């Protein structure tokens, strides 16, 4: 049996172990334990308790993995997770109730309802940037929907991964909720198995691998990926507030390492200098004059990613466009908030998701041109615009396609449990948060009740022209036609 406390992990979790893991969970699921409301509530309460009891440990693990500032760790991971859990506990009973639906004359007399049922045994693979939240938020949905679940946290955030394994092992029902730690070999072993659903948060490259593995078993998949989230900035805005919100939505989010953080800005040639000045002023207010030593900025997660991000600045044509920042501290994996102006369109920075503290500003003559620029790229997870021009807002909503849109702010929409959070196209498929988390791990079974009472013999052979007439009338809901057909008109 695959266990969460075996170290080293190297040779012990293989295909065989994965197979027996799934078998064990299937047995638990088939026995019906995870379906009861009581079980789901008890598990969710345990998750909540785990988070409350070990808040400091979680903050410490996030500091170890990402140098995440305490308040950021609290606000963006712990508080969000608690909030999600509490919201789910409050709403769960309602979500579990079958939904009655109207039926029409074509199936008269009948009644129908949609009954939510768990999919079965599900796999959640999470990411390293919000390792606590992105692991447990989907798990909340999986448990709320009554499934047995395996969580594979990211190995790039090892302290959090190991903390999750330990805490879930202690607090949760181990016959139904398991954590498997590991890297590529362990993940591959898991992906070979037949799951009833796979929920993956990460990048497009691995997303394709997950989807291809799922295809072998016809397993439905949710992919929460990323993209280059653009921020369009108009000139008719409150500059200081805008600058602050952009900073909060870029460097305030794991120092730019977030799927919905502002990737780049698009603004007019005239306005760019004003925007840059405002950003510079606010950046100093937030992080001081020595951002590399500020406690309020996360570091880059690993040396691989540090190399990847610094490489984006390697090109002279790019480095020459830096208007603020640009310093880094390789030993501590720190990169300062960096702003660039008008880097060449074809450079690497403008063609990959940056996922780091570099903010290129692209200038255009008219803001309407920005829509074309955005639409010429792959659809991102989010797109933002700062403007007070109503017409521009509506044009933005109408013309820009992304997972979600936010007007006059950045990133805040994820805190709302009433909005589905997910991508489209390259930024992913499926959505979650709030009720959408429950739904994504649920099968909505249609249940139709018919009585033996009325029936249209027109349905059955032997087939006659009269029956055809009646069927035509019945299927079109044409009452007069039905009567006429019935009386043989």
């Amino acid at each position, binding site marked *: 049996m695959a266990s969460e406390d075996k170290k080293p992990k190297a040779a012990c979790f293989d295909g065989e172990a994965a197979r027996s893991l799934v078998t064990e969970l299937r047995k638990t699921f088939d026995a019906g334990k995870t379906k009861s409301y009581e079980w789901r509530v008890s598990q969710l309460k345990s998750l909540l308790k785990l988070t409350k009891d070990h*808040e400091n440990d979680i903050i410490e693990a996030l500091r170890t993995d990402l140098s995440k*500032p*305490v308040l*950021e760790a609290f606000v963006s991971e712990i508080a969000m997770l608690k909030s999600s859990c509490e919201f789910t506990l409050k709403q769960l009973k309602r979500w579990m109730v079958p939904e009655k639906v*109207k*039926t*029409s004359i*074509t*199936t008269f007399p*009948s009644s*129908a309802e949609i009954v939510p049922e768990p*999919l*079965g045994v599900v796999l959640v693979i999470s990411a390293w940037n919000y390792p606590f939240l992105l692991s447990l938020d989907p798990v909340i949905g999986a448990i709320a929907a009554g499934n047995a679940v395996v969580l594979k946290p990211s190995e790039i955030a090892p302290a959090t991964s190991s903390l999750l394994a330990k805490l879930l092992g202690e607090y949760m029902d181990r016959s139904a909720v398991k954590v498997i730690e590991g890297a590529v070999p362990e993940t591959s072993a898991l992906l070979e198995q037949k799951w*009833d659903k796979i929920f993956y948060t990460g990048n*497009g490259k691995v997303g394709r691998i997950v989807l*291809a593995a*799922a*295809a072998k078993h*016809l397993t439905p998949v949710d992919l929460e*990926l990323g993209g280059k989230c653009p921020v369009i900035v108009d000139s008719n805005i409150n500059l200081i507030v*805008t600058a*602050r919100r952009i900073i*909060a939505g870029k460097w305030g989010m794991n120092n730019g390492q977030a799927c919905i953080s502002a990737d780049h800005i698009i603004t007019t040639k005239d306005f760019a200098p004003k925007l840059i000045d405002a950003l510079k002023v606010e950046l100093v*207010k*937030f*992080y001081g004059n020595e951002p590399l030593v500020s406690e*309020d900025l996360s570091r880059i997660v690993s040396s691989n990613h540090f190399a990847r991000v610094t490489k984006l600045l390697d090109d002279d044509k790019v480095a020459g466009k830096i208007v603020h920042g640009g310093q880094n501290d390789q030993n501590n994996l720190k990169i300062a908030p960096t702003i660039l102006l008008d880097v060449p369109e074809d450079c690497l920075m403008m063609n990959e998701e940056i996922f780091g503290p570099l903010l290129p500003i692209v200038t255009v003559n008219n803001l309407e041109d920005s829509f074309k620029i955005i639409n010429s790229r792959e659809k991102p997870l989010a797109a933002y615009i700062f403007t007070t021009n109503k017409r521009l*807002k509506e044009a933005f*909503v109408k013309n820009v*396609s992304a997972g*979600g*849109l*936010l*007007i*006059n702010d950045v990133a805040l*929409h994820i805190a*709302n449990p*009433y*909005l*589905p959070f997910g991508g489209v*196209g390259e930024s992913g*498929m499926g959505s979650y948060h709030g009720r959408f988390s429950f739904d994504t791990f649920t099968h*909505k*079974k*249609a*249940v*139709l*009740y*018919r009585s*033996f009472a009325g*029936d249209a013999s*027109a*349905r*059955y*052979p*032997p*087939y006659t022209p009269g*029956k055809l007439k009646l*069927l035509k009338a019945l*299927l079109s809901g044409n009452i007069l036609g039905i009567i006429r057909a019935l009386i043989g008109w």
Partner: protein
Amino acid sequence: MEPIGDLERELEELRETYKSGKTKEASWRRSQLKSLLSLLEEREEDIFQALHQDIGKNHVESYRDEVGILIKSVNYALDCLKQWMSGKNVKLPMVTFPTRAELVPEPLGIVLIISSWNFPFGLSLEPLIGAIAAGNVVVLKPSELAPASSSVLATTLHSYLDNKAVKVIQGGPSVGDQLLQQKWDKIFFTGSPRVARIVMTAAAKHLTPVTLELGGKCPAVVDALSSSWDREMAIKRILGGKFGACAGQACIGIDYILTEKKFATTLIEEMKVLIKKMFGENPRESHSVARIINKHHFLSLKSLLDDPMVKASVVYGGSLDEDHLFIEPTILLDPPLEAAIMNEEIFGPLLPIISLEKIEESVEFIKSRPRGLSVYAFTKNEKLMRRLISETSSGSLIFNDAIIQYAADTVPFGGVGESGFGRYHGKFSFDAFTHEKAVVRRHFLIEFWFRFPPWNDYKMQLFKSAYRYNYLSVVLITLGLKKSSQCSKTH
């Protein structure tokens, strides 16, 4: 067969059309749906003829199962289109006031629909209705195994609909492969699990979301019904849901029956009587039962009966006419459970009846097998009904009827597990081809100043209260009337 150069041209035209924004307009969608309606009403005869040629369907069956249902669905979509297209306002927690949020439906873009041969019009046009209503441009690849229908679809859609936005590409597996190499914004597939795997694997390369409408073995639990009226009604529906639906070649057709030993004989006797009444003495002559699609499928059905123990269990029918690809309605009683006929989806007019000691055993029987598109139960026993609902899983569960869920607009139609994922019909068709975009509008007025660094305990305390939606606390702390007593000591 479409050479690849032509295909690229067609796709380029579709991309241009989509980029122009034409298909997003409500007027375009409405006009296309209305044209589809005209197509169905005016070309009814061509459709009946094609279905008769391809699978020997009686035109009343064709109307009942395909044309009529499509007309109903198009009308439903026309009635609801405005509502479906309008955004949905979303409530927000007060702490975010005065923010507004809504869900805005938008088309996915360029979509591919691959349909099956058994209901070639229904399974092509029902998804098409959803794709058009949702504002997409579409390529439809009908099944080459129903060539007359495929051809009628190509010519009629070409002449009635906007052929810069809706294209039919005919052909077999190699055309299918070429299509699957392209990048689609969505693929909607109806067919077998084997091909579904090929489709999904191809889709994975482009991160294309898919809907898979597959099949499975749909069981019908038949309880001992005491009233003869109920029995007759039930049996008519069972026979209609098996032999009357494309001769059993339907994904939601009844695959096999589960009943109690003591009821089995009555059931079989009454079924024999009604089969004769409904399908006549010679079903092939009376054109009341469709034929088998092709020799390949005919031979695989024949081989199901090859097993001597299976053959011995035939209690009615069993005659096969290879020249006419016709199999008469056949009933079997208790073929061995390990036989192929009880382990593969039959997809033909062979109806095994499995007899159990007690009807409650049917729950375990169904549970221990892969999940199908539907489970049927003919019973008035409420306890059994409740157990079936909560202990079995399937795409849908129908009490006291069969197949009819296909005609419903308000219940989702789709599978789970081995029978597929995704759903459609009614608004669910619209949703299957839509991206629901979350749109949040904020103002510059109110700001949570404590959102921004530099961080300190005070801000931490405010956050803790705000996240608990403890507005009073937030106010008190801001006014300096409440101390930060629970703040974390790690900062």
